[in-house]
């Protein structure tokens, strides 16, 4: 089982990922595909389970926001180490749509060398790649103590600090 960091802590993952053929049981935590969620939106919404949706990095989220808004968990994919599309998806979800649930990063890029930028783009949940040292990943979330840009994390950006100083 892979390690999960959620809100800055190592956590056990309550969710179980289902393939599209497996039925959703009552009262569990399940992750389903975006395709299934689109197709079975109504029955899944009233299934009595907490449903998270796993979204390919090619989906334009602003368009699908209507059916995503109330989800407790959205999983975004990093299919390879250098494929950064989900960074843009995350910022759109958090900053544009105002998504407030768990936003999870999964895949080949969820490693200590990228985790802080994921955090900055609004991810609050990280399914670490199997070879990763969880402690190193936790530490790497603070690699940079400052940032030039405002993003979805809590770092007060440099431009704002400068404005405050000269005010």
């Amino acid at each position, binding site marked *: 089982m892979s390690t999960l960091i959620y809100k800055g802590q190592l956590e056990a993952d309550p969710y179980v990922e289902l393939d599209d053929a497996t039925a959703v049981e009552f009262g569990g935590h399940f992750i389903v595909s975006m395709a299934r969620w689109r197709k079975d939106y109504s029955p899944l919404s009233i299934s009595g389970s907490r449903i998270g949706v796993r979204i390919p990095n090619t989906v334009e989220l602003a368009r699908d926001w209507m059916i995503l808004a109330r989800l407790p968990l959205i999983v975004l994919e990093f299919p390879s180490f250098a494929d950064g599309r989900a960074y843009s998806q995350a910022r759109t979800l958090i900053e544009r749509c105002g998504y407030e649930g768990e936003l999870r990063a999964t895949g080949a890029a969820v490693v200590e060398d990228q985790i802080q930028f994921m955090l900055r783009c609004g991810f609050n949940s990280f399914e670490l790649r199997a070879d990763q040292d969880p402690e190193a990943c936790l530490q790497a979330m603070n690699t*940079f103590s*400052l940032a030039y840009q405002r993003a979805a994390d809590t770092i007060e950006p440099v431009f704002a600090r400068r404005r405050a100083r000269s005010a």
Partner: protein
Amino acid sequence: MYQYDEFDQTLIDERVTQFRDQTARFLAGTLSEDEFKPLRLRNGLYVQRFAPMLRISIPYGLLASKQVRMLAHIARTYDKGYGHFTTRQNMQFNWPAIADVPDILADLASVQMHAIQTSGNCIRNLTSDHLAGVAKDELVDPRPYCEIARQWATFHPEFNWLPRKFKLAFSSSTSDRAATRVHDIGVHIVRNAAGELGYTIFVGGGLGRTPIIGVQIREFLPEVDLLSYCEAILRIYNRLGRRDNIYKARIKILVKETGVETFRQMVEHEWQQIKDSYLKLLPEDLARMKGHFLEPAYAPDADQDASYAAHLASDSAFAAWTRRNLKEHRVPGYSAVFASLKAKGVAPGDISAEQLDAVANLADQYSFGEIRATHNQNLVFADVAQKDLYPLWQALREQGLATPNIGLLTDVICCPGLDFCSLSNASSIAVAEEIFERFESLDDQHDIGEIKLNMSGCMNGCGHHSVGHIGILGVDKKGEEWYQITLGGSSENDASLGDRTGPSVSRADIADAVQNLIETYLGVRSSEDESFLACYRRVGMKPFKTRLYAEAEAAA
């Protein structure tokens, strides 16, 4: 120039720490080669044909003398005693050891320098006019805007893993010296009819395998909206740029495949949603940044000096140099002085540690302690008083930096090619040398006049061959070195891509080919005032082609 505050310093120091850790993990075997590669590239570190290559960032080409001294120190301590200025106003070292790179970066950080984002699929070091702030034809100094954009682009969390590299260039003058139309985003700082400052935005230009001139997607963008508009473009690109084929991954392909109009609408739509966010610049942000680029204390009576005229009259070598290597300054009595890095027997752009130290000292003595790198791979002392021109020339001449060839045939742009680059098909430096020898006579060169000869060792086009008035591209033909020639390219405001002359030319024939082209030009030009480019545009390919291939056939 821009001075770091404690925030900038903290960020580059933390970057050094991060890279030290990444390098240690790589050397210990816990970080794989495949994953270390994109991480080291984001710190400018390539692994090349013979050794690693480290590319150091010189934002918009501007250097303080203490930074130049640091480059000399690095050349001496970690390299073979010299460095190479690139066509992107950066500096490359060709022989550092991987294990030393964290120390090199720490040394650089001590003088507010770094190698951040000088490679990799992210927003690259941005470039601008090497005459920024001093050019006569300039509307406003582009450097404050460059620095604002540099900070926004540095460690941008969303755009660090783009489909491909992404380059921005800024210009604010009637002659575009920053080649903005061949960048992913080209920014022209302009004033609209109401007198307000803002930008005309070009997108999708680029050299390399599929050279394209950027298209205008916004005629006027208000001054405060620079970052939101760039962010909108980048977001569309990050989401939709192709990742299935490295040769189709640049934004130019996305713009082409989407269609300019549709692409423009997508950007505008995205921009509408973020333009009134925190990305909007405040007047005070602009004012604070402009305060970093105040003009130096020019002597009000600099143009009263009489010694300059006397030296011009008495020293013809000095006079010849002033004709080629000076550019007019907006302040009377001052000049921008070009130090040529295109001397005989030296690879274009190469400079030794001793020369770097000398340049630093001369900058302190004669040009307010600053120096600029140009994308033509030369250096500029931007603010030299008339009375100092003669001693500066003498000192440069002693250093071999006073070749009076700026803008002439031997002022070639040339990538490192076969000698260093693992991607190269054919040598470029050796060809540059041969051409140098053939056209060494200055009188001949003066007669030929303004011309840009650009050479790349492969399709990647680091030597900007497609926008050379004459472009030479190394190609591989069954393991042999051949050269494809193009004519009529330009990277200035009238940007255009060169046209191919026809079949490629062998290594043995390339210098002859260039000579034939030049002779053809001298024969058909309407007057001495018609430049090679203007002449080519008037008469077209035919006379050049006829001569080029007739000679080749006769020789065969």
